[in-house]
């Protein structure tokens, strides 16, 4: 078991780093003009983007402190953090330097699986409930791992549509997965996920309604890649997919309704409209993509906070389902 006190202190340090750094970082982004419009407010205010970079900093601070006191953890920490940093760099390039095409982004994010592959931080036998471990000696590292990283990173990114939706749901998901990792006695993975929960919660305090800062692709891709890295390291692939079902459903709805990969800025018809209240309503257009938000407001317009609470309740449900699956697996 990992030294519990240093682990708890590292989580606290990670949380404090994100909580304290986000505001000055947001001011810097505002000065640099790296901002986006909050389209779900009547006056469409300018909000600083790329704030999610502080989540990566928080992860680095927490992990750096823990690794300094527990050097045997350094390989896991290096693999996890490198994966997160590669995904964050792709996001920052997209946010700031040059907008990437959807295919470029998907391809670039698959590179985030490289550190896990090079450092050998995987077991090529993903465990399925009832079925047990599948032997995927070659398919796992060269097909499954890059696919998992890019699918989770992009799905979490696509869920970043409302104030606090990505950070809030990610905190809940990470907490459930921490508990699951503890149940499986995967202490290192439990620490990674606990730290992720602490950092995303620190960010959520600035990103919740009304948002002071947006995570940007740099933050949301990094968080998605962090989930994938933890799932691969801790052999929690299936359980992670269950916890992140809301993000996966949203991603598959968008993909299947548009019939191709597309960037947010490339969508011509918005899936939702802002109506009096202010409330979010579903666009009646057949050309607009079907999204989870559009599905939630399809029968009645809702306030932004209500939709985000709906997202979080859905994540609590999928977390509970993953927990039940974990108990089945332990019982079987």
């Amino acid at each position: 078991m990992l030294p519990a006190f240093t682990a708890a202190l590292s989580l606290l340090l990670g949380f404090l780093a994100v909580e304290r750094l986000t505001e000055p970082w947001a001011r810097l982004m505002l000065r640099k003009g790296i901002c986006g419009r909050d389209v779900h407010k009547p006056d469409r205010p300018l909000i600083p983007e790329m704030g999610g970079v502080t989540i990566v900093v928080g992860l680095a601070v927490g992990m750096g402190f823990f690794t300094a006191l527990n050097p045997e953890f350094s390989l896991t920490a290096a693999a996890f953090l490198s994966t997160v940093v590669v995904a964050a760099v792709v996001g920052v390039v997209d946010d700031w330097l040059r907008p990437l095409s959807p295919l470029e982004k998907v391809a670039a994010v698959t590179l985030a699986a490289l550190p896990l592959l090079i450092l050998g931080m995987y077991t090529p036998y993903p465990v399925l409930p009832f079925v047990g471990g599948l032997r995927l000696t070659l398919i796992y590292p060269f097909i499954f791992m890059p696919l998992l990283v890019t699918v989770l990173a992009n799905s979490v990114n696509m869920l970043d549509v409302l104030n606090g939706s990505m950070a809030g749901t990610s905190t809940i998901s990470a907490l459930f997965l921490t508990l699951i990792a503890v149940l499986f006695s995967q202490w290192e993975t439990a620490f990674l996920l606990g730290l992720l929960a602490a950092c995303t919660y620190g960010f959520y305090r600035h990103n919740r309604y009304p948002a002071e800062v947006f995570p940007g692709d740099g933050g949301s891709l990094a968080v998605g890649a962090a989930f994938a890295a933890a799932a691969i390291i801790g052999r929690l692939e299936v359980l992670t997919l269950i916890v992140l079902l809301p993000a996966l459903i949203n991603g598959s709805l968008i993909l299947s309704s548009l019939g191709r990969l597309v960037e947010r800025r490339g969508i011509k018809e918005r899936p939702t409209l802002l109506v009096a209240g202010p409330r979010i309503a579903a666009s009646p257009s057949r050309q607009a993509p079907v999204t989870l938000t559009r599905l939630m407001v399809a029968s009645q317009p809702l306030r932004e906070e209500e939709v985000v609470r709906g997202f979080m309740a859905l994540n609590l449900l999928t977390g509970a389902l993953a927990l039940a699956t974990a108990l089945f697996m332990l019982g079987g």
Partner: protein
Amino acid sequence: MLGKFWKLYAAVVLFWVLCLEAAWLLAELYMPLVKTWTSGELGALTSDILVWLGVLFTLAVILIFFRRFFHALFWYELSLGEEKRGKQRFSQ
């Protein structure tokens, strides 16, 4: 909150139940069959490939079904909303 989105939450639970049920069927019915079919030197490899294909096929069927299901749910909810707005306009 559960009241507003209960259909969506019920769909997600149904998806989970179906996935677990499919995994149980694979483990209890399909895998023993595969083990009896495959024997000899190449048995282990053939068995792995057949199990892997079985899992992929089952997952693909469930995903295709649920993709349609969620789209149908969306258009149903949208038509419900239209109906509600129509009634409101009529009563005004």
